[in-house]
């Protein structure tokens, strides 16, 4: 009898706590906490160890161990292994910006350069093709990172740099810097960098000039040498009247 009463008591408590747990889980989801779904995809992507780690709540430790392995693989220029490891790492720790950033850097900067300079591949076209594939891999990492962390400016910033330095796509770079600038805790330079990139987009010089001028007027601290130089270049390009120009 006592056993039955105890079981009923537990069940009643369970029924009472269910909505509370559900509500807290929802809050966590909105705050993007614990953003790892325990499903077969996770099992496939992370392997058995990673899956167990996710089950047990020790994701961070396993991810760090894999990160150290990735570091070693990078030193050995084992790019396929670096890619595989970072896929697991970012799956286990989707809210760790560092891992997305490092993954993209390894692919878009390190692996792509290695591919371009690969002496084992005599054909330049194929080396460039491989380089571009690595750019894409880097971009994928950052885009997935942004989807998992939409409120953090760092990955927008990293993707903007990738567009700027690897694709020469200043328009996309400007858009991303501008998005980063709107997010909480964004560093002050994001707005400046958005304007710099916009200035390099054909047909967008007037918008860039307006942004740079607004920054110039907002504070003395914003009057960096690069900003002043860009303003001067745009004043000449846009034939701004002398009385509207910034002093030399």
């Amino acid at each position, binding site marked *: 009898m*006592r056993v039955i*009463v*105890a079981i009923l*008591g*537990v*069940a009643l*408590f*369970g*029924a009472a*706590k*269910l909505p*509370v*747990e*559900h509500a*807290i*889980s929802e*809050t*966590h989801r909105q*705050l*993007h*906490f*614990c953003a790892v779904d*325990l499903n077969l995809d996770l099992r496939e992507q992370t392997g058995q160890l990673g899956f167990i780690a996710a*089950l*047990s*709540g*020790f*994701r*961070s*430790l396993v*991810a*760090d161990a894999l*990160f*150290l392995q990735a*570091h070693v693989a990078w030193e050995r220029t084992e790019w396929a292994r670096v890619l595989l490891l970072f896929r697991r790492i970012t799956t286990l*720790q989707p*809210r*760790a*910006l*560092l891992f997305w950033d*490092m993954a993209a850097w390894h692919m878009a900067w390190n692996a792509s350069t290695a591919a371009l300079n690969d002496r084992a591949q005599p054909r330049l076209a194929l080396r460039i093709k491989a380089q571009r594939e690595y750019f894409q891999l880097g971009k994928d990492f950052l885009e997935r990172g942004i989807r998992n962390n939409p409120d953090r400016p760092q990955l927008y910033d990293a993707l903007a740099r990738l567009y700027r330095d690897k694709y020469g796509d200043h328009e996309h770079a400007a858009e991303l810097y501008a998005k980063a600038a709107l997010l909480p805790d964004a*560093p*002050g330079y994001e707005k400046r960098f958005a304007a710099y990139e916009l200035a390099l987009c054909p047909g967008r010089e007037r918008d860039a000039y307006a942004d740079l001028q607004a920054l110039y007027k907002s504070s003395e*601290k914003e009057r*960096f040498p690069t900003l002043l130089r860009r303003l001067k270049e745009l004043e000449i390009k846009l034939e701004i009247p002398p009385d509207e120009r910034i002093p030399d």
Partner: protein
Amino acid sequence: MNEGHHAFSFFRVAAITGATLRGLARLKTFYVLLLFALLLIGNSIFMAQMTFQQEFQVLKDIALGAMSVFSSLLAVLATARLLPQDIDDRTASTILAKPVSRFEYLAGKLLGALLLLAISLAAMSALFFLVLTVREQWVLRETVRQMSAAPPDQLSEALRLVRASALNPNLLAGIAIIYVKACLLASLTLFVSTFATTSIFTMIVMAFVYFIGHLQAVAREFWLQTHSAGWISQTFLGLVALFFPDLQLFTLTDDVVAGNAIPMTVLAQIVTLGLFYTGFYLLLAWSVFFRKEL
């Protein structure tokens, strides 16, 4: 002879708590685990040379991970043997032959275990903060040295980034949640030990509960939202959702390390839920132990 007997006395509970803490602090298991955790945290200072963000991330991961593992393990291992040992030695008989209620006895035992967990976590936290502070100060000095020619606002931004990556109040929230999870596990272990036949049985059951607890959220959401599964699956999922605690709610170390701020309201909710669980399992333990024949 004393004056009228009081049904509940913190003084009696405190006496049992003190004796329990002293006994647990002598466990070899405790020292081995603590040494391992401290070594892990201490050695993380010698990680491979990386950027400071990488280094701080890895340091925090290892430290908080070690604290989480250690406190969860200790919560189960230390509590699993509390009751069986006393019953086997007949010490429980001498204690309960005194004017001590079974609830006071259980509460004293559990509080002793919780106090041990608190002291252990405090020791690990102190070492962790020391290591983090030492590294942070080194990185700050290096940053100032390397950016000596940079404009002041860039330097201050760089220093702000370093400080934000190192110590921040979120870490305390993370440690608090680790402790609350350990309290829940200790209380649940005490409940299981009231009807378990051996300590090994208790530990094995708790290992299962630990894993299932981390899956409870999946089972719960599926049970609440999906009605197309067969009745066997629905029943199984319902049982998991009702009878197991959602341990994922208490596993926020990854987000803490990633720098995600834990709002005070969320922290308060988790801590309150954890304390409710702890209290509920203590009551469950009492309901079983109340009429246990010694």
